[in-house]
C-alpha cells in the first residue's frame, strides 16, 4: 500500500460512512481515537453494522476479520482499524 497512515484513516472513515449510508456525518467529524461502538458516540455502531464494515474492509483491503471477538477489539476506533490494516498489508507511506 502506498498511502500514508493519515490517508488510510481518512479512507476508512469514508468507507464506513458509505457502507452504512450515513450522510449527515463527515469524515472530519470522526475522531481517530473515539470509540466507534455504543450510543453517545459520533457514529454509534452496533453489531450488525460491524458485520457490514467487516465485509467492506475485506472487499477493499483483502483482509480477513473472521472472528467477532477479535473484530470487536480491532473495530474499537479508526486508529485500531488502521493499525490492523497496516499490519496485515504493510504500509510504506
Amino acid at each position, binding site marked *: 500500500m502506498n498511502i500514508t497512515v493519515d490517508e488510510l484513516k481518512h479512507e476508512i472513515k469514508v468507507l464506513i460512512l458509505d457502507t452504512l449510508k450515513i450522510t449527515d456525518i463527515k469524515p472530519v467529524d470522526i475522531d481517530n481515537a473515539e470509540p466507534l461502538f455504543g450510543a453517545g458516540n459520533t457514529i454509534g455502531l452496533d453489531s*450488525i453494522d460491524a458485520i457490514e464494515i467487516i*465485509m467492506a474492509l475485506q472487499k477493499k483491503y483483502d483482509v480477513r476479520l473472521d472472528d467477532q471477538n477479535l473484530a470487536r477489539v480491532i473495530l474499537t476506533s479508526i486508529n485500531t482499524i488502521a493499525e490492523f490494516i497496516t499490519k496485515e498489508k504493510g504500509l510504506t507511506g
Partner: protein
Amino acid sequence: MNPIAYDHKMAAHCETGTVAALLNHSGMEITEPMVFGIAGGIFFGYFKTAQFTFPTFIVRSKPGQIRKNIEKLLGVKMGSSTFKDPVKAEAELDNLLDEGIPVAVQVDFFYMDYLPAWQRVHINVHFVTIIGRNGNKYLLSDIYYPKVVEIEKDTLRKGRFAGGSMAPNGFMFYIKSIPPKPDYEKAIRKGIKKAIFNMLKIPIPFLGVKGIEMFSRKITDWPKYARDEEHLSHEIMKINVLLEDQGTGGAGFRFMFATFLRQASEILKDNDLFEMSKRMMAIGDGWREISLHAARIGKKRELGPEKLKELSDMIRSRAEAEKEFFTDLKKLV
C-alpha cells in the same frame, strides 16, 4: 499466592479456546481451530420442538463434546468435577491453584463483570480459566477479553452456581497429563471423518446438511410462530447472532473449520486438503452473507414473503454447497 505463569490469548470460542490454551500451558502445541477440527466440532441442527418456543438452530457439536473428544482422540487426561456445595468447589479450586494448575470453570456469562454491560447476557455455558488468587479475588483469563482480570470471589461464585437451564453446578476441568507424542495425523483424519459423518450420515432429518435443508424450507413459515412483527424481526436478526456473535469464529464455525483444514493440510502435507480449506472459507463467506441479509431485513422490518424466500434460497445454496463439500472431503480421508 503468585499467579500461575499463563499465556493469556484471545480466541474465538470459549470451549475450544480454553481447551487449546490449557493444552498449550501443559506444553502441547495445538491451535484453537485444530482443537475444533479434531474434536469434530462442525455441525448443524435445526430445531422446532416443545423445548424451544421458536425454531432455532445450532452450528456446532453440543457443549462438552469438544473436551471429551480431545481426551479420546489425542490421549489427553483431564480432571473434572461438579459440586453441590460452593464452599467445596472453591476449596478444590484453591487446592489446584496452589499446585500451580490453571483450572477452567463453567460460569454464567452474565456475572463476568469485567465485560461491558451490553455484552453480558445469561448464558450458562461459558468457560473461563482461573490462574491465581489474591485475597478475595481470583485472577481470571477469559478468551473473550484482551487481558487477565481480577474477579471478586463472590461474583465468581454467583457465576459458577447460577441456576437455570444447563446450570454450571460448579463444573470445572483441568489438564492432568498430555501424551509425550500425540498422533496428530491419526487424530486429524478421525476428526474429519467425524465431521463428514455428522454432516452427511446421521439418519435424522433435522441434523447435518439435512438440517440446513430443513432450515431453508421452514424459514418461510417463521411468521406463523411469531407473536408480532417485532418478535419476528428479533428472531430473524438472531440468525446473525447465532452465526456470528456466539464465539463461532465467524460464519457459524465455518471459518474455523476452514482454518483447521488449512493447518491439517500442512501437517499431513496434503494439498487437496488445502484446496478444501479454501472451498470451506468460500462457503463461510456465503453464510456471512446470510447473517448480513437476516440482520438487514430484521432491522428494517422487511419481513414479507419475498424477503424470507430470498433468505430461504441463500440457506438452500449453503446446504447444496456443504453437501457437495463433505461428499468431496470424504474422498480424501
